[in-house]
Every structure is written in structure tokens, then in C-alpha cells.
């Protein structure tokens, strides 16, 4: 299988690119490919959300994401895995997070992708602020 130059783990202030992830997964895996994209929800209670701002403790976030990557490959027998997370300002309809996995069978691909998102949301030091259209910020105390 050809190697891709797309990084498997990425924290990026630029918009994330599902087509690139999909292309990279497809070139390295036959069988079942599952992709997850999280986009900002546009409401916080009654208030309209205009954008998200993501901050990270970058070196630790990279290390935690790498742990997730290695564990997912081992546990679910993945052929390939990409985990990309947006940093900085993320507008509506942009990807906040992208996960792409390839495995010989779909059950493993689905379960890996779910597990990756559960882990990411509980361990990776990234924080979200919601920018409301009234100009205020909302910071979740208990996500």
C-alpha cells in the first residue's frame, strides 16, 4: 500500500480536509472505512452560536492523541487511522474534529471510531469556547 504524507495526528489552525483524510485512508486500506466529523452546534440554550474557539495544551494533546492512535490500532486491528482536531476559531459548517479509520471489517471500524471519539472527549487536553452572536463567550464547566 502506498504511504501518505498526511499526518495521522494533527492539530491545525487551518480548516480540516475530509477529502484528504478519505483519500489517505482509501490508499492504505481495503474493506471498511468509517469517518466521523464533528461540526459546531448552532445553539447554546436559546442563544445562537457564531463560532467555536479551541485551545489546546499542544504537546500533551499530541501525546494523548498518539496514545489513542496506537491503542486503537492494537485493539481494533486497524489498517490506518487519522485523528485531526481544529484549533483556534472554527466557524459553523467547518470540521471541529475529523476521524478516519480503515479496517478489514466494518464492525471493528465502527467500534474503533466510536472508541476514539469517547477517548478524545475525555482525555485530550483541548478546550472549547463558544462565541455567541450577542458577542459573549460560553465556557463549559462540565462538558
Amino acid at each position, binding site marked *: 500500500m502506498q504511504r501518505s504524507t498526511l499526518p495521522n495526528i494533527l492539530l491545525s489552525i487551518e480548516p480540516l480536509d475530509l477529502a484528504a483524510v478519505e483519500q489517505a485512508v482509501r490508499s492504505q486500506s481495503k474493506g471498511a472505512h468509517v469517518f466521523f466529523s464533528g461540526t459546531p452546534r448552532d445553539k447554546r440554550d436559546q442563544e445562537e452560536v457564531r463560532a467555536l474557539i479551541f485551545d489546546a495544551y499542544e504537546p*500533551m494533546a499530541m501525546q494523548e492523541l498518539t496514545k489513542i492512535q496506537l491503542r486503537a490500532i492494537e485493539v481494533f486491528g486497524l489498517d490506518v487511522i487519522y485523528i485531526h482536531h481544529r484549533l483556534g476559531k472554527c466557524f459553523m459548517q467547518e470540521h*471541529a474534529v475529523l476521524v478516519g479509520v480503515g479496517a478489514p471489517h466494518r464492525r471493528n471500524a465502527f467500534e474503533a471510531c466510536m472508541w476514539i471519539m469517547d477517548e478524545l472527549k475525555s482525555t*485530550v*487536553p483541548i*478546550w472549547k469556547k463558544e462565541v455567541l452572536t450577542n458577542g459573549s463567550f460560553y*465556557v*463549559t*464547566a462540565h*462538558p
Partner: protein
Amino acid sequence: MEHSLNILAFGQASLFCGGSSFVINAALPITVDELRCLIHKKFPMMPTNYMVAIQLEYASNDQIIGDSNCEIAIIPPVSGG
């Protein structure tokens, strides 16, 4: 002898310490639990539901901090994804 520990603060925690880092003076070695008490004394309004990371790894409350040069961070509940 007192050492100055530089503590990185992220997310909600940074709203309570007025920036992305602050200094705690402590006689080393101390445990993570003891560090938490010192942080609570300094910033009583800061919620205590954070984790402590030492050298980029989550630390348990009984882990010992013996080196003032190690990188210490307080990690409030994460909200990525």
C-alpha cells in the same frame, strides 16, 4: 528550602488565575494533593475539578513532585471533539 513551581493553566482554570501560568512557592518534595491545597489557598474561587499533569502525563494525587524544573499543568475538564 522553598522552590518556585511554574504551573501552566488551561481552559476554565486560566480564567481564575488571570493568565496561562502562575507560580506556587513550595518546599519540595510535595505530593500532587499538597500542590492542590496550595493552589486552592492562592485561588480559592478556582473549581477543584481539574487533573494535574506532570511532564505531559496525567498524575495521580499521591504522585510526588521533587524537581522544580518539571512541567506542571492543571487540566480542567476537557471539551474537545
